[in-house]
């Protein structure tokens, strides 16, 4: 099931565990699925030069980002035999311990989901114009760099 138009992948603020649980629940009617694989990005309370990250504030070039998410989605459906794929990313403030990225792939067989999920997550990190500002507890900040 590929979509022709880009969807809005962005959610305002953190992605809740209830949302994720509910998304899993909705797939129980799809009885051709044998394997799901889910990646969750969680904001780390990194300590940098004695200061602790309290939150990340995400901004994005939204139009381009949604186009890129759509391209990644189309490529993944071409490369891998997937039944479903869902991507959600936060915008705005996400506190340490909260979830900012939720990628969910499903397939009849397990080998496929492992390959597909890693491909999608790496593509998101590399190709999607999203910018994280790490806010420390003292309200100073630095710009996040992906490794």
């Amino acid at each position, binding site marked *: 099931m590929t979509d022709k138009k880009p969807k809005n992948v962005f959610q305002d603020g953190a992605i809740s565990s209830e949302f994720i649980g509910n998304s899993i629940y909705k797939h129980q009617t799809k009885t051709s699925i044998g394997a799901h694989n889910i990646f969750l990005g969680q904001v780390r309370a990194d300590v940098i030069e004695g200061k602790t990250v309290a939150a990340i504030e995400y901004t994005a070039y939204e139009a381009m980002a949604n186009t890129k998410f759509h391209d990644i989605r189309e490529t993944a459906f071409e490369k891998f035999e997937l039944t479903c794929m869902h991507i959600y990313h936060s915008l705005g403030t996400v506190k340490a311990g909260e979830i900012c990225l939720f990628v969910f792939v499903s397939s009849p067989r397990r080998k496929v989901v492992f390959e597909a999920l890693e491909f999608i997550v790496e593509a998101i990190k590399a190709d999607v114009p*999203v910018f*994280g500002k790490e806010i420390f507890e003292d309200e100073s900040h630095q*710009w996040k*760099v992906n490794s």
Partner: protein
Amino acid sequence: MLITIKYFGQIAEATQTQEEQLDLPQHSIGDLLTVLYSKYSALQLKDFKIAQNQKLVGLDTLLTGEDIALLPPFSGG
């Protein structure tokens, strides 16, 4: 040619604006950069990519009049 330029993340922090319109001769991305470096000296120390109409472009690409965006390193997820 009136061009909309969008700034993001730490680039917007350096320019202190998120978007502006500049009237430029129909020329290359490289020429635009020269204008921007002289307007915002802080930009010279920054790492960024440039998109025209949401596609990444090089310095030799000609300006088409569509939106330009200055994008610092991506750090989603």
